[in-house]
C-alpha cells in the first residue's frame, strides 16, 4: 500500500505563541518549532500498516525551508521518503489555498491512503482532510481511534458525541487519526542516522502548476482585521483549607448563584 502522511511543523504549544504584528500570521520565527503532535500518530499508523501489509510511506509537508528539521525528524521514525512543498509565495496561505496546494502535490504521488492528524495544535483547523477529499474526489474518514485495513477496504472507528461510529470506505481515501489510536514510537539512533540519507524531494508551486496569486496573502480567502493580547485572567480569592474549605467553596458557589 502506498501511504502518504501529511506532516505539519507548528510552534511548540507549551511555549508562548504570538501573531506577528506586520502581517498577522503565526510568528513561527520566534517560537520553538516541532512536529504537530497528532501527526506523529499518523506516522505511527502508517508504519504499522506498512509492517503488516507492505508498501511505502512518504511524508508530505508544505512549509518554509526550516520545515526540513521536522521532515528529518519524521523520517527518523521510519518512513521511506519525503516531499517538501516549499515556495516563498506560500506564506500566509489560508486553509482553502493550503488544501489546493496539498491536493496538487498528492495528485503527483498516487497514494492509496493519505493519513494525517485529526487537527493541528496551532490553527486548530479540523477542516483539511475533508477539503482534500473534496478536491481529490476520494473518501474521508476522520477522527479515527482505530483503523483496520483489509486489502483495499478501510474500516475506522470514530468517537461521536453520543458514542461511536464504525465507518468504511475503499482506497484511495484520506484518514485522519486521533491520539488514542496508537502510541508513536521514538526514533532509534539508527533511525536518526538513516533519516539523513533518505530522499527528500522539493516541489515548487510551478512544479505543481499552481499560480502564486492563488495562494499566500494574494490568494487568501479570509483576512485578519486586527489582533490583540487578551488581558490575562487575574487570580481571585485563594484560601487554604483549615477544615472548612469545602463549606466555604459552596458558599462562594451560592453567592455566584451556581447552587
Amino acid at each position: 500500500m502506498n501511504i502518504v502522511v501529511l506532516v505539519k511543523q507548528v510552534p511548540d504549544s507549551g511555549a508562548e505563541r504570538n501573531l506577528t504584528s506586520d502581517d498577522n500570521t503565526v510568528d513561527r520565527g520566534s517560537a520553538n518549532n516541532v512536529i504537530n503532535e497528532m501527526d506523529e500518530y499518523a506516522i505511527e499508523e502508517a508504519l504499522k500498516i506498512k509492517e503488516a501489509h507492505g508498501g511505502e510511506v512518504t511524508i508530505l509537508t508544505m512549509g518554509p525551508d526550516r520545515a526540513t528539521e521536522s521532515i528529518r525528524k519524521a523520517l527518523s521514525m521510519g518512513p521511506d521518503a519525503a516531499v517538501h512543498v516549499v515556495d516563498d509565495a506560500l506564506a500566509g496561505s489560508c486553509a482553502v489555498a493550503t488544501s489546493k496546494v496539498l491536493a496538487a502535490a498528492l495528485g503527483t504521488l498516487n497514494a492509496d491512503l493519505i493519513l494525517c492528524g485529526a487537527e493541528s495544535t496551532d490553527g486548530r483547523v479540523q477542516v483539511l482532510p475533508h477539503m482534500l477529499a473534496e478536491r481529490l474526489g476520494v473518501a474521508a474518514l476522520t477522527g479515527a481511534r482505530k483503523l483496520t485495513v483489509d486489502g483495499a477496504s478501510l474500516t475506522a472507528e470514530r468517537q461521536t458525541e453520543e458514542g461511536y461510529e464504525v465507518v468504511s470506505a475503499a482506497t484511495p481515501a484520506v484518514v485522519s487519526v486521533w491520539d488514542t489510536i496508537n502510541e508513536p514510537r521514538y526514533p532509534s539512533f539508527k533511525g536518526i542516522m538513516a533519516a539523513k540519507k533518505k530522499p527528500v524531494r522539493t516541489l515548487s508551486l510551478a512544479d505543481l502548476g499552481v499560480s502564486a496569486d492563488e495562494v499566500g496573502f494574494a490568494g487568501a480567502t479570509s483576512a485578519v482585521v486586527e489582533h490583540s493580547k487578551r488581558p490575562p485572567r487575574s487570580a481571585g480569592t485563594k484560601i487554604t483549607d483549615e477544615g472548612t474549605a469545602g463549606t466555604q467553596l459552596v458558599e462562594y458557589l451560592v453567592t455566584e448563584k451556581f447552587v
Partner: protein
Amino acid sequence: MAEVLVVVEATQAFGVKKVTLELLTLARRIGSPSAVVLGGPGAAAELAGKLAEYGAEKIYAAESEEIDGHLVAPKATVLANLVREVQPAAVLLASTQEGKEIAGRLAVKLDNGLLTDVVDLDADGTATQVAFAGSTIVKSKVTRGLPLVTLRPNSVTPEPAPATPGTVALEVAATEADKLAKVVERVAEQKGSRPELTEASIVVSGGRGIGNADNFKLVEEIADLLGGAVGASRAAVDSGYYPHQFQVGQTGKTVSPQLYVALGISGAIQHRAGMQTSKTIVAVNKDAEAPIFELADFGVVGDLFKVLPQAAEEIRKRK
C-alpha cells in the same frame, strides 16, 4: 431581509443542540434566519418546534437515507446547491467536528473563505476568534465569498424569538463521490442524564490528582449535584481514570461554560487551551503553587479527599 442559513445539529437524547439556538440568535443580527435540517427521513418535523421558538423564519429540510448512511459529503452537496440558489447573507454552522467538516467541503465547493472556532460575529461579518490557548483575540473577515463561519458552543446566550416558519423540502442529489464514506454502524453509549460536555453551562473536571478511576465518582457526584458535565485532564485520561471523549484541552474538547471546576488539575497550558474562556473558574489543588490558581476566581489549597466530601454535603444541605 436576506436569509442567513443556519445548519442545525441535534442529538437523539436532547433534540436541537444549544449551539444551534445560539446560531439562530446570532443570525438575527445579520438577516432572517433559515434553519437547514440535514438528516434522515422525518428529521425536520421533530425539531421544528424548537427552531421556531428561537426565531427560524424558514426551515429547509433535506431528508434522506443517503444523508443518514454516509459521512458529511452529501450534506455539503445539498448545502452548496442551496447557497447557489438563495444567495444567503451568511452561512453559520457549529464548531463541532461535523460542523467544521461540512464547512470545509463547502468552502472548497464554493471557493469561499472560512472562519472556524468563532466566538462572536458582527452584523458586517467580522468574526472574533480566540487563538493560542486563549491568549490572543483575533478579528477576521472572509474576503472571498460570503461569511462562512463556525461558532464555538457556549459563545452566545440563546434568546427565544418565536416565529412561524414554513418548511421547504430540498432535493438530496448526492454524487457518487459523496457516497464513498459509509456509516456501517452507530453505537450509542450510555451517558445517563448529564449534559453534553461542550454544551454544559457547568463543567466539573478531574485530573491526575483524583488518583484512580474509582475516585472519579467524587467528581461525578459534584457534577451531578451542580447539574453539570464531567471533564478530565489528559493525564487523567492517559492514566485510564476517565474515557477520552471527556478530555478537555488542546487535544480534547474546548469548553466555555459559566462555571468550570478544576479538581486535582495543575493547569498546564494545553489544559488551559480548552477551558480558559470559562466565565468563572474554581480550583481545588493541594499545591499552592499550581498554575491553575493563576486563573481561578476562587481557589482552595487543600486535599481533595477532605474538601470534596464536605462540599458535597454542604450542597445537599442547601438544596
